[in-house]
């Protein structure tokens, strides 16, 4: 009569399986891809959304674009409407959805079956769940990842039985956050959008 399969017995069945490599490789690939995208994002921002400051060598200033704001206004006696127009400027990068430049979700799933035959006369079932969170993209700090490993073991009967273990691993990766400097610039500009009267009168 053999022992009921235990967690340690279960673990032994997985020794030699390169789980770390199997789970890490797709995440590493996604992280590398996001690292490349982060560099492309920076190059795009600097070359497209900034100009070199000619007065200060080594400094760059955000490229601004101009909008017209129009507003319908009722005359004081309520008789007719006029349209007031004003111009305002925003940084070019404020209208580019930069943070969509990332691999938002990556779903890698693989199933693993380990089968063995043991002899015992007991009925049991157990399940196992492991979760971990880490940042594997240290060079870019671009991605967080979380891993969940679920396993279940079901055995029944008496005498000669077989046990099977199935692991399903799912990996998900989150969105690339905007660099802090960029969010600061966007925040400052969005809070200071002050329209100025348009040069060409557009009110009718």
């Amino acid at each position, binding site marked *: 009569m053999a022992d009921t399969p235990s967690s340690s017995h279960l673990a032994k069945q997985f020794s030699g399986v390169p789980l770390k490599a199997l789970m890490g490789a797709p995440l590493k690939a996604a992280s590398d*891809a996001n690292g*490349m*995208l982060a560099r*492309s*994002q920076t190059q*795009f921002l600097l070359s*497209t*959304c900034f100009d070199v400051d000619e007065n200060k060598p080594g400094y760059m200033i955000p*490229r601004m*674009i*101009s*909008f*017209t*704001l*129009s*507003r*319908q206004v009722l005359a004081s006696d309520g008789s007719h409407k006029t349209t007031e127009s*004003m*111009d*305002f400027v*925003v940084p*070019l990068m*404020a*209208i*580019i*959805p*930069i943070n*969509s*430049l*990332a*691999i*938002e979700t*990556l779903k890698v799933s693989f199933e693993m079956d380990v089968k063995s035959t043991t002899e015992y006369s007991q009925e049991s079932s157990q399940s196992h769940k492991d979760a971990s969170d880490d940042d594997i993209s240290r060079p870019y700090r671009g991605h967080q990842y979380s891993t969940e490993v679920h396993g279940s073991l079901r055995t029944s009967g008496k005498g000669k039985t077989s046990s099977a273990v199935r692991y399903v691993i799912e990996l998900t990766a989150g969105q690339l956050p905007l660099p802090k400097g960029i969010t600061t610039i966007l925040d400052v500009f*969005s809070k200071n*959008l*002050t*329209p100025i009267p348009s040069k060409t009168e557009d009110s009718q």
Partner: protein
Amino acid sequence: MNIQTQIPCPDCGTPIPVDGAMLLTGTRFSCPNPQCHCAIALNSNDRQVVANAFEQFSYLRERAQHMASGH
């Protein structure tokens, strides 16, 4: 090129949803705040600058989608 973005309303601060392609044609976008009767439009002299930026951004985004699909 399908770029959806938003610009905070200069008057009330409510984000105004903006379609990239329509922005380049000079379309006016109204503030979604019912109390605010503002509309904004890109000035014609900056359309080319924005068009170039959108084009480069679209190229980058395609690369990202290409990578995400595992090719």
